[in-house]
């Protein structure tokens, strides 16, 4: 999973192209992960140290780990950790990027550091991303307390992600949710939920992404944000929310949904708590909004 997160980050920074990302994430790129890449991933060695060991390997017929220990770059314990990771590891994106000569060890190290800064992920959180455990990743991202509002938001976005995977695109990468008081949008499809709880739910995206989302959901040709595109997004929200309140009903919470509304270029000022969950899809970003 980390490959997807890091890959989308590189794509958003225009460091790699979409075509390159597809190639490096494809199954044919399954090779043994090199210790140098794992050492940089783990923060045990710098790119310069890895390059130095590689240069030494070119001159001496010695193993990477032995030379790294001999030069004081790794401890015995660290090498053991890396060797065990190498056994269980899937090919890292970094490995493929370097094998394909898209970037150097130096570039990789710097981008990894920048990714941690930009994403705000701690080392522990990065490890969870590497685990490929979707539930753990959602749990990690939705660690916003245990209030009734957070529980409902969590249930809402878990269902939303499943519906995106089922009806729109299976390659969805969720970002870190956040609370905000003001949210500006280009396009916003919303639907109110009323009853035991009052909630406003919505999906926000740029014109280009709205068109592609609508096309993916309907399998129809849509070329602009017209009535059909708006209707498609609204119908996706309607199905999502219909399922959501049916799930709530089974838990003894009785709510109903109001007709959907599509708005262009505006701002939402939160009357209550406004949660935002950013999601990356292969064709662009959407934000899931949930106000309670």
């Amino acid at each position: 999973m980390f490959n997807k997160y890091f890959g989308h980050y590189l794509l958003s920074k225009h460091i790699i192209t979409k075509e390159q990302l597809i190639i490096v994430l494809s199954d044919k790129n399954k090779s043994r992960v090199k210790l140098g890449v794992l050492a940089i991933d783990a923060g045990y060695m710098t790119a310069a140290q890895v390059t130095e060991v590689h240069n030494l390997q070119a001159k001496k017929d010695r193993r990477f780990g032995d030379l790294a220990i001999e030069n004081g770059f790794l401890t015995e314990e660290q090498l053991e950790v890396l060797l065990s990771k190498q056994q269980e590891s899937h090919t890292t994106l970094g490995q493929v990027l370097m094998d394909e000569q898209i970037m150097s060890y130096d570039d990789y190290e710097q981008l990894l550091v920048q990714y941690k800064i930009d994403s705000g992920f701690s080392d522990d959180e990065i490890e969870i991303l590497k685990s490929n455990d979707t539930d753990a990743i959602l749990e990690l991202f939705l660690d916003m307390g245990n209030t009734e509002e957070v529980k409902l938001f969590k249930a809402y976005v878990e269902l939303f992600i499943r519906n995106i995977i089922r009806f729109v695109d299976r390659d969805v990468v969720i970002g870190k949710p956040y609370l905000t008081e003001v949210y500006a949008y280009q396009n916003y499809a919303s639907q109110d939920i009323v009853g035991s709880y009052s909630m406003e739910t919505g999906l926000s995206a740029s014109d280009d992404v709205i068109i592609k989302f609508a096309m993916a959901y309907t399998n129809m040709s849509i070329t602009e944000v017209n009535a059909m595109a708006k209707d498609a997004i609204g119908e996706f929200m309607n199905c999502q929310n219909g399922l959501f309140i049916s799930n709530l009903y089974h838990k003894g919470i009785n709510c109903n949904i109001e007709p959907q509304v599509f708005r262009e270029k505006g701002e939402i000022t939160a009357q209550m708590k406004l949660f935002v969950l950013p999601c990356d899809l292969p064709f662009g970003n959407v934000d899931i909004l949930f106000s309670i």
Partner: protein
Amino acid sequence: MARILIVDDSAISRIKLKDIFELDCHEIVGMAEDGLEGVEKFKALKPDLVTLDVTMPKMKGLDCLKEIMTLDQNANVVMISALGKGDTILEALNAGALNYITKPFEEKQVLKTIREALEEL
């Protein structure tokens, strides 16, 4: 073959349902975007069967259903809605709907339900 009226505020749903019914040799006599229009078209067109959404502007589907049943207690209505919770389904069936399909619907499921409803006519 049946003469069918589709009442749904979603253009996508109306188009999909129209395609499904026409491929099964039914005639779409009309389509309405909300409950009020649905009642008016029911009066004017007297269809054999109505498919009715629940969450709609102006007049909600359940109110539209009750109006239609008041106009004709033998009206044949199948609900097709994203709202699939028990009390809404029960209310629709008690009000006279023949069946209830939840969205997102699949072609086979829609045709099976409609055929069963038509067999009861």
